[in-house]
């Protein structure tokens, strides 16, 4: 019987002939924790009587969620991470390096066919590179740091086939917000998502990360794609590792196959306070906004900043709007400086903050006030997500965020292109 991508990778890494619903213990290729989860993992490591980190060259801590530290308590947790990673010869990406989910692919740690766990729910991002990458908690991370292994229930797979061509002004963010609105926040719980079809193949690798990143927002364990020539080229440019791409068999069994034609898709917005509360931009156009955020592991890459800059070139951000930009990594920051994109954004009125997660997760760098509306390229709009439960968060593409920042209200970006 044929296998899905998830079944193949978990079979390869466990040495078992595994199919959906089997339990396997598998060798993990890379392990990651960030500053919201690693301190607890260190405590769990100690509680487990862990002595050393197995293969520390394939384990990283990333300080990105509160970077640089806004509080004394956070500083102590960061110190704990620095000390532990040093003692164990682990990789440490300290403040300013960037968001974990940008760094792991960019630094070449993950690629096709690899098995990755991260103590962060958006670890599914690397599925765009054909990696079985999934979020776990701190105790699971500690177990994997000690043993190099993790247990998994092999997931069933839902295949999403996206036909057609995305219209101008409509991006991968719009596509994934639309898909989530269709399947809902728990439509793929415990399952693997495989994204395929010509609309996916037409996307750049950077745009594909946005889709895999948000697989968790439909409950999925992983958001997998095949590794085509674009992926292999991207991976060769970022890594010296030998990776082996994995394709699904033609006779693989799927829990469901969902087909969509995206040729008529509008820019999409997820309204507060649910990610699956998606509507075409027209339904909320004109809603006033007080803050616009461009960045995060979903949409903080060079391509995202460039799309926003194209709209902002020669324009100014509306006087009633704070426009916060967080490049996803130091490399993205440098590239955006070199191409002039950063200059355009700053000239338009952007406040650029350290590469990191702050503006998405409410730790610092732009907490909204009571009753304010925020439009953001992030992946979550839960009540209180940005540290104020009386604020309203709308999720959108970089183009929609840029257009809305200019007009001071939610705006269809096609007005500007």
């Amino acid at each position: 019987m044929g296998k899905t991508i998830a079944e193949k990778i978990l079979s390869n890494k466990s040495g078992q002939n595994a199919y959906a619903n089997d339990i396997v213990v598998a060798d993990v290729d890379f392990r990651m924790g960030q500053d919201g989860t690693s301190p607890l993992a260190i405590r769990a490591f100690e509680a487990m009587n862990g002595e050393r980190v197995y293969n520390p060259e394939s384990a990283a801590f990333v300080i990105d969620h509160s970077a640089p530290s806004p509080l004394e308590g956070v500083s102590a947790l960061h110190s704990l991470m620095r000390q532990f990673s040093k003692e164990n010869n682990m990789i440490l990406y300290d403040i300013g390096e960037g968001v974990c989910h940008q760094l792991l692919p960019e630094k070449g740690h993950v690629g096709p066919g690899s098995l990755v766990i991260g103590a962060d729910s958006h670890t599914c991002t690397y599925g765009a590179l054909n990696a079985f990458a999934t979020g776990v908690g701190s105790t699971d991370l500690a177990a994997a740091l000690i043993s190099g292994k993790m247990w998994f229930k092999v997931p069933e797979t839902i295949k999403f086939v996206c036909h057609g061509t995305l219209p101008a002004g409509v991006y991968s963010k719009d596509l994934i917000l639309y898909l989530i609105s269709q399947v809902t926040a728990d439509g793929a719980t415990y399952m693997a998502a495989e994204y395929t079809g010509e609309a996916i193949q037409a996307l750049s690798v950077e745009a594909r990360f946005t889709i895999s990143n948000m697989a968790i927002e439909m409950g999925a364990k992983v958001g997998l794609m095949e590794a085509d020539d674009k992926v292999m080229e991207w991976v060769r440019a970022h890594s010296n590792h030998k990776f082996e791409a994995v394709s699904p068999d033609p006779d693989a069994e799927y829990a469901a196959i969902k087909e969509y034609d995206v040729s008529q898709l509008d820019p999409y917005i997820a309204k507060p306070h649910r990610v699956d509360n998606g509507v075409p931009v027209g339904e909320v156009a004109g809603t006033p906004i007080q803050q616009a955020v461009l960045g995060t592991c979903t949409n903080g890459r060079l391509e995202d900043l460039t799309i926003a800059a194209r709209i902002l070139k020669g324009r100014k951000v509306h006087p009633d709007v704070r426009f916060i930009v967080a490049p996803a990594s130091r490399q993205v920051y440098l590239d955006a400086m070199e191409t002039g994109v950063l200059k355009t954004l700053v000239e338009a009125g952007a406040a650029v903050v350290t590469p990191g997660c702050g503006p998405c997760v409410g730790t610092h760098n732009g907490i909204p006030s009571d009753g304010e509306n925020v439009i953001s390229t992030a992946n979550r709009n839960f009540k209180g997500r940005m540290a104020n439960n009386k604020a309203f968060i709308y999720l959108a593409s970089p183009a929609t965020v840029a257009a809305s920042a200019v007009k001071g209200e939610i705006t269809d970006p096609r007005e500007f292109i």
Partner: protein
Amino acid sequence: MELRGRAHCFGDDVNTDYIISGKYKFKTLDMKELAKHVMEDLDPDFARRVQPGDFVVAGRNFGCGSSREQAPLALLNAGVGAVLAQSFARIFYRNAINTGLPVVICDTSLIESGDELLVDLEKGLLQNLTKGIEVPIKPLPSVMLKILSDGGLAEHFRKYGTFHLE
């Protein structure tokens, strides 16, 4: 394992930001401190009202969102004896078992806040003592039962030094 307590009902898709907000969880490893803010954005009085052993009862997809293990830990430290829901998001489900918070999948539609509940994990049965109703519980996968019966994943590793799930 028999658990008894009163129900506190919530709806569908209770995410981990609602269980414990990011604005608190990044600051400290003091779970008693975090427990003061548990469920705050949904029910600001919950942390004050909850009694040791009480149950959080919810609809579908409890614990969706981030991977923060502070979510089950804050519930445990607030005194919550178990979470009962129609379904759970997978990372929360794993984290709960790993940290020793019982999670029960069952039909919660007839439970109301204040109902007195008795859960028998071995028998796989929930008794609603207030309403006189019995509801079956979906059994845990054997791997998870093994981890829970060892007292969580940390204790499991302390005992075996690695995964020992046969």
